[in-house]
């Protein structure tokens, strides 16, 4: 920590003023970042009439959860008006398998690429890594054809496959960087103890991978849950994930614009990732910076 504070022993009042200013600036920024969240929550709890009469920052006079229940049960996505619950579960059914599969593959790839290096392991890694950086627009057209040929077009398994394939490079990167910092001697010791490739992986490497598993799961979950491009391109109607449904509701031009429902839907869409972030964000940062394992 750049503890420069400890060095500033100047005039007391001048310091106090500076500190006060510092906190003021930080609080103003905090308000800026919180403002949209506040607007979302307060709007979602208002009735439409109150929205039209009141202002953006006014608190709801009467708190009503109508918008939330309407969004969950009755909101119209396209022509079907059965709420976004269907799409919420679509996203869950898509995200969980995709996160688990891509994390597992990343772990075993990272392990193989660092602890059982073969000739060309670096090249293989570099080639895999490249996939992290391509703009996905460049694979959209072939992918939609391949999904069609495989009979996976507009299906949740199809989206799972897409997310696994393009998440692999990230998970491999995470695990590889983590495993590089684990001493090779651990694997050597286990080899001399008589353990083989998979035994070492299951019994020794995986049990000490918790920090990076957390990173990989959080990253993949937010990526997949928040994805819109693949969802919009490779799903349709009842198979769409949450983000696509949200966009659909918000941009529907027919009928009265129900801002409270939009905001409730947006909150519902953002809630899982926000929850993950608030509960486990600490471990995410810690895991990303986690270096070697003592022992």
């Amino acid at each position, binding site marked *: 920590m750049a503890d*420069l504070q400890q060095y500033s022993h100047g005039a007391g009042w001048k310091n106090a003023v500076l500190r006060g200013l510092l906190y003021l600036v930080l609080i103003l920024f905090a308000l800026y970042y919180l403002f*949209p969240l506040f607007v979302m929550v307060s709007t979602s709890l208002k009735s439409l009439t109150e929205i039209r009469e009141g202002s953006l920052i006014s608190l709801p006079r009467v708190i009503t959860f109508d918008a939330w229940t309407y969004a969950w049960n009755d909101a119209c996505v396209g022509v079907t008006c059965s709420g976004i619950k269907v799409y919420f579960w679509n996203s869950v059914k898509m995200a969980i398998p995709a996160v688990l599969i891509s994390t597992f593959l990343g772990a075993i790839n990272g392990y*193989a690429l660092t602890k059982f290096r073969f000739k060309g392991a670096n090249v293989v890694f570099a080639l895999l890594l490249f996939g992290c950086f391509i703009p996905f627009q*460049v694979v959209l057209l072939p992918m939609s054809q391949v999904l069609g040929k495989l009979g996976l077009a507009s299906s949740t398994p199809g989206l799972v496959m897409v997310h696994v*394939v393009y998440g692999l490079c990230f998970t491999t990167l995470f695990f590889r960087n983590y495993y590089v910092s684990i001493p090779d001697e651990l694997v050597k010791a286990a080899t001399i103890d008589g353990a083989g490739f998979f035994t070492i992986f299951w019994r020794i490497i995986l049990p000490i991978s918790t920090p990076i598993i957390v990173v990989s799961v959080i990253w993949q979950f937010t990526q997949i849950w928040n994805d819109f491009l693949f969802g919009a391109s490779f799903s349709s109607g009842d198979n769409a994930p949450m983000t696509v449904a949200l966009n659909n509701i918000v941009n529907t031009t027919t009928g009265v614009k129900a801002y409270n429902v939009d905001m409730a839907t*947006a909150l519902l869409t953002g809630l899982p990732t926000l929850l993950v972030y608030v509960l486990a964000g600490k471990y995410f940062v810690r895991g990303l910076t986690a270096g070697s394992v003592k022992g």
Partner: protein
Amino acid sequence: MGASSSTKSNLTALIQRNLSKIVVAPSFAASLFFVYGFILWTAYMAFSDSRMMPSYGWTGLRQYERLWSMERWHVAIENLLIFGGLFITICLLLGCLLAVLLDQRIRAEGALRTIFLYPMALSFIVTGTVWKWILNPGLGLENMMHELGWASFKFDWLINSDMAIYTVVIAGVWQASGFVMAMFLAALRGVDQDIIRAAYMDGASLPRIYFGIIIPSIRPVFLSAIVVLAHLAVKSFDLVIALTGGGPGYASDLPATFMYTMAFQRNQLGIGAASAMMMLATVMAIIVPYLYSELRGGRKNG
């Protein structure tokens, strides 16, 4: 190995020795097909006469010519420059400022960090939706200012073709600047304390120490942040769709939305493919030199 006599145990030994390769092979194959294969496929489509359906009649550079003759593509490119430039610059400045401010032994630093960073957890669609609501001229910010007594306040960027792209910048900065802050903060914490102590003993003032020593020493993080932000900017698709839908008209189109519109709504697969290739080229121009230097640097340690 040496002792194995039958073919079967030879095979087992062979598998044992190559387990590592065997394990990586599926991912590698998937990457070869879904990344490299698809890029080539798209590249080929960009040379074809594909319209509504993929077709493989060779037309050379015809699609690229059509692409570059489209007014809309030029708008998208121009928007990318505006958006990318502002988005990266503001995120860097804001992120750096916040990191330095947070680095002053702040009480409740954890809470503030969480507040600055949480937008990153949200989908761009959510961000777009909420900013669309805040910025809408009827009931949003404009209305709020009127209620507060500032009757002449006018804020109609969302529906103003000249200004729409700037609303994307506003929302984008809100979402990503906290992430840049986190990167910088981590780097600031990694700066060698002895250097700072030495500078202090030499009589350098606090701003001097920051501008003269600390910030220059975390230069690599600037580079990483720029690469990440540039990458985000080129890929930005969801945000535009949710916030402006590319409108009014196509005033706030970005290459990403342009490609999507061409490929999936206008039945111009060829032009879509050509624009995707242009996007790839842009990203590569940023990423490849960066990766090259990163991997070369990494080899020294590993």
